């Protein structure tokens, strides 16, 4: 029976041209829900997208911070450092030309020369901590020997990384070693430390061990928390094993391409 035959329409059937509103909207809702389920992104798809976008923007921020440190290092190297070297050199020449040790001018120049030399050394330490140029140029192995040599305690260094990781990850590994050794020198009361860096497929493992008194934790206030945050910024992990009485081992595992 066709829709149009008015004579045969039972009392319960609504005319075809206008279905009852409630039924229609119900159908539409069901339809829409089915379409969403079948065609559209699910809640977990949406979350996955969000995670991906957050990870991407975080990686961008890490890379941008890294680039910014490099820029500052370069600016200081080309600007303030050269000026200070020049200043210290001129004062050195003036000092050498004044031979009378009792001359007040000579004493003033001597003091200024010493002060300029100290400022230069301090600035050099600071700038190298920002981002060592040798890290980009020659990698972790070459860069780490610089901080290890300057540590106030004997440190053994072993780096076994054949293929280099991304610049961001290398920078994080460098700062972890640098900060960890500063911590060891300040708090650990250690006689020796050892730094090993190796690469296992796509993971870079950085380990700093010292024979100090142990009891280090990554709780508030300690530099270790900052290290954990640095590692996390590139999707890495940092674990601290430091029983009272020592020894302390800090291990960072970082994905190479972050």
């Amino acid at each position, binding site marked *: 029976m066709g829709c149009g035959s008015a004579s045969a329409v039972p009392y319960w059937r609504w005319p075809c041209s206008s279905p009852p509103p409630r039924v229609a909207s119900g159908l539409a809702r069901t339809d829409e829900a089915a379409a969403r389920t079948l065609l559209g992104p699910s809640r977990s798809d949406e979350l996955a997208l969000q995670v991906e976008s957050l990870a991407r923007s975080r990686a961008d921020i890490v890379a941008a911070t890294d680039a910014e440190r490099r820029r500052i290092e*370069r600016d200081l*190297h*080309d600007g303030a*450092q*050269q*000026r200070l*070297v*020049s200043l*210290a*050199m*001129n*004062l*050195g*020449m003036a*000092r*050498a030309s004044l031979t009378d040790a009792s001359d007040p001018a000579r004493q003033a120049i001597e003091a200024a*020369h010493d002060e*300029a*030399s100290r400022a*230069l*050394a301090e600035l*050099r330490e600071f*700038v*190298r901590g920002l981002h*060592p*140029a*040798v890290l*980009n*140029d*020659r990698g972790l*192995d*070459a860069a780490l*020997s*610089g901080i*290890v*040599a*300057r540590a106030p305690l*004997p*440190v*053994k*260094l072993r780096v076994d990384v054949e293929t280099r990781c991304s610049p961001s990850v290398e920078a994080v590994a460098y700062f972890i070693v640098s900060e960890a050794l500063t911590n060891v020198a300040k708090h650990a009361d250690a006689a020796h430390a050892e730094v090993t860096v190796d690469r296992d497929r796509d993971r870079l493992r950085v380990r700093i061990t010292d024979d100090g008194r142990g009891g280090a934790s990554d709780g508030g206030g300690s530099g270790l928390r900052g290290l954990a945050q640095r590692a996390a910024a590139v999707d890495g992990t940092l674990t601290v094993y430091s029983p009272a009485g020592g020894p302390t081992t800090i291990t960072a595992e970082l994905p190479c391409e972050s």
Partner: protein
Amino acid sequence: MRIVIAEDSVLLRAGLTTLLTDAGFDVVAAVPDADELLRAVAEHQPDLVLIDVRMPPTHTDEGIRAALVIRRQYPEVAVLVLSQYVEESYATDLLSIGTSSVGYLLKDRVAQVSDFLDALRRVAAGGTVLDPEVVAQLLVRRRDDPTDRLTPREQEVLRLMAEGRSNNGITDALRVSPSAVEKYISSIFAKLDLPPTDTDHRRVLAVLRYLRA
């Protein structure tokens, strides 16, 4: 002595030129990058070149690469490299071609005018001058613990030897008697199993064997 300076900072290039000229050296060229350095060396055949590590275009290790070219092509030209930071990997490169007439110092050292001029003369005279910071970095490279074999005092003596100091220089620096210094040095030679040849040669060998072990 005829010197070529390669330094990209205008300020320092001028400062170094004044410093060396005042000290009686003949600065025959002062250039801002590695290409011009190589041209100046070919043209002037200087006795010594003073080279900054970071120069244009990439501001990384241009100076080291130029120094290596000069060491290979002009072995009679002494090379003194200056850098804002000293790095052992650069030092190893520099020393790989030979250990005479070569030096590598932190740029800061130019402020200690007379020490710097002494270092420059030692390099020109065929010596090896390494910054104490380089030596410290090279020491951590040793596979076994350096304290195992040499006493701290002997290490100190060796460090001064690596800086190119003579026995007299070491005597002055450590404020000990000349005979004590000789004793330390022969003990270092013995511990490093160096055969008795001429002393100067053994000194360099001692430094290198120790640093590269």
